């Protein structure tokens, strides 16, 4: 157990800090959330800067054009970029963190050459077409079907919770290619052009009033068979491969941000006098313990991934269960700090975050599903009931 970073790691951090210090002041103003072309351009520009500085695809294997960084370096990268207030991965998210790694692991040489470099350079954006309204938590019960027609699949169905669909060039799509097979065995992974005829994107408004997500309607969209990654009907396994890139780093930036928010809440409470309320003050103290522990658990998971070579970690479920809950608690405490008045003002900091936080126990596997995973796969309790 050694929580100190190695000289090499500290050197990596120092170089990164220096670079961030040099490049961030020159960034253009952040675009408005509703300005999709502006957001794409902004995210693309940032990715290009990362690429030019050698930080693009930091955690990708070198043979896929990445830097082959260790999980710890990746943790440092995420920590420092968050601390410095650098742009988020934004529209590059799916390309860099899901579709890209999948193609790197399972694609043919041609597929890798075609799709990976534009992702790293910020030239092509991807979105994800996995979730379906009727499938919900039972993702593998997806019904979007792909029927072979010559060299194409003809795809029809409906997807939901697709981020950045408005500006993506490609969509990593899960489709059912064998309706007779058991549900996990009849799925294929396709790369679909978002400008293909038959693709309709409709913004999906969340309870926070934003349209970060979209629904996607597919009406006889033709996707070349050559755009399938992996074997036909092997898409479920192909997709699971992506998870092996999860090296405990998924929430690094968020935990850093939460700790900063907690400090800001304490400062605000001291300012507006609510710090004198022992109930609130101790509640903030408790949250500090939680986020300190979550930061250490992150380091633990990263360290475990580094030691084991990045094998898929179901330990992520333990982290997510606690984190989702504590982050919701954070914004409940924020409402207390703001008081009964300001907590109702959407223009006050933290109020929209409180609304967004309601999704944490649902998105990417509800807490109920996560508890099943923890109980069955980690604790070895029998499946069932």
């Amino acid at each position, binding site marked *: 157990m050694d929580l100190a970073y190695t000289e090499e790691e500290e050197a990596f951090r120092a170089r990164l800090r220096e670079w961030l210090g040099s490049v961030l002041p020159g960034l253009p103003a952040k675009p408005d959330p509703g300005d999709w072309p502006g957001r794409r351009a902004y995210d693309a520009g940032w990715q290009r800067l990362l690429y030019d500085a050698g930080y693009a695809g930091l955690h990708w294997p070198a043979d896929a054009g990445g830097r082959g960084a260790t999980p710890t370096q990746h943790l440092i990268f995420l920590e420092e970029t968050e601390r410095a207030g650098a742009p988020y991965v934004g529209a590059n998210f799916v390309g860099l963190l899901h579709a890209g790694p999948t193609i790197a692991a399972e694609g043919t040489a041609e597929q890798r050459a075609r799709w990976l470099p534009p992702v790293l350079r910020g030239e092509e954006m991807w979105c994800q077409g996995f979730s379906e309204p009727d499938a919900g938590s039972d993702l593998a019960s997806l019904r979007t079907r792909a029927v072979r027609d010559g060299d194409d699949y003809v795809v029809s169905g409906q997807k939901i919770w697709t981020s950045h669909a408005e500006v993506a060039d490609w969509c990593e799509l899960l489709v059912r290619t064998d309706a007779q097979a058991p549900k996990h065995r009849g799925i294929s992974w396709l790369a679909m052009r978002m400008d293909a005829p038959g693709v309709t994107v409709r913004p999906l*408004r*969340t*309870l926070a009033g934003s349209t970060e997500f979209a629904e996607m309607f597919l009406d006889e969209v033709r996707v070349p068979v050559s755009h399938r990654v992996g074997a036909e009907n092997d898409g479920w396994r192909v997709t699971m491969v992506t998870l092996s890139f999860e090296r405990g780093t998924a929430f690094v930036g968020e935990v850093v941000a939460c700790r900063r928010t907690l400090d800001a809440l304490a400062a605000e409470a001291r300012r507006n006098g609510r710090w004198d309320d022992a109930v609130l003050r101790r509640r903030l103290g408790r949250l500090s313990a939680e986020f300190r522990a979550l930061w250490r658990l992150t380091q633990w998971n990263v360290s475990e991934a580094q030691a084991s070579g990045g094998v898929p970690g179901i330990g992520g479920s333990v982290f997510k269960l606690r984190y989702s809950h504590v982050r919701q608690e954070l914004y409940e405490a924020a409402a207390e700090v703001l008081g009964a*008045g300001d*907590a109702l*003002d*959407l223009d006050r900091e933290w109020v929209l975050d409180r609304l967004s936080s309601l999704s944490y126990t649902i*998105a990417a596997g509800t807490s109920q599903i996560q508890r099943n995973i923890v109980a069955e796969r980690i604790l070895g309790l029998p499946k069932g009931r």
Partner: protein
Amino acid sequence: MDFQLSEDQRALRAGIRGLLAGRFDRDRMRAAHERGGGVDRALWRELGAAGFFALRLPEATGGVGLGLPESVLMFEEVGRALLPGPLAATQLAAGVVKGAAEGEAVVALAEAGRPVGHLEEADALLVLDGDRTRLVSGGALRRLVGEAQPVRSLDPGTPLWRVPDLSAYEGEVLPDGARLRCEGALLAAAEQLGSAGRSLEAAVQHAREREQFGAPIGAFQAVKHLCAGMLVRAEPARSAVYAAAVTGDPVEAAAAKLLADEAAVDNARDCLQVHGGMGFTWEADVHLRLKRAWLRSGQWLTAADAEEVLAAGLG
């Protein structure tokens, strides 16, 4: 002792439920929230005509002559229907503010340090400011409105304004401020109760219909127990609210508000969780209930204040 609703009380409840089903069905509820939750004056008048605001005024002065228990039953129904507007303040001001009893006037609630809902539409303002409870109207109200700033409201059903220091606005001081606060808290609690009940029903309905992994999700214990927990929150709160309405005791009212706030907020959150991703969309109604429940939790009597009132009553 008879804690059962009387025939008359059941009829009253059926009446308001019927009125709301006809005049404020889901489509109208959604439309009201899409346009920012302003008061629908026509519906307000209809409620007035049905005796909603004059419910507790003596029959001799044109009122319905009923009591707080009947009010609480009515407010539970408007809470369930998610009707926007300062219903509690207006009912409390009936008989004092001209037109309030008939549904011609809208009386909004203003509390120190909090934004005011429906300010621009208000014909009068019930101001709770320290120990002085008063009605601000006419010129003082116009002056106050002129100095207020609109707030981008968390609750799409309640337009909010930030107002200057309330102490600068004089008005008719009401002699029974403590009673008004207690009753306001109780009526708000009744609305919370209605909301909590509606969230439970919506969750149960969804759990019965939505299939995942080859079964209705309500067949899974995780979902089943979430729903059971919602009922276990709502029923004690209901007993507390009804009992406080019968006794009018301020400590009981504090208990009622505390438990009803919690039931409304937590049931909305559990309802959202049962709905999964769909619960997170604007299309689902549950967020509207959650936001209103948050709003009402901060009105009349907060949890912290209620706990102190209850603690003071111990020992």
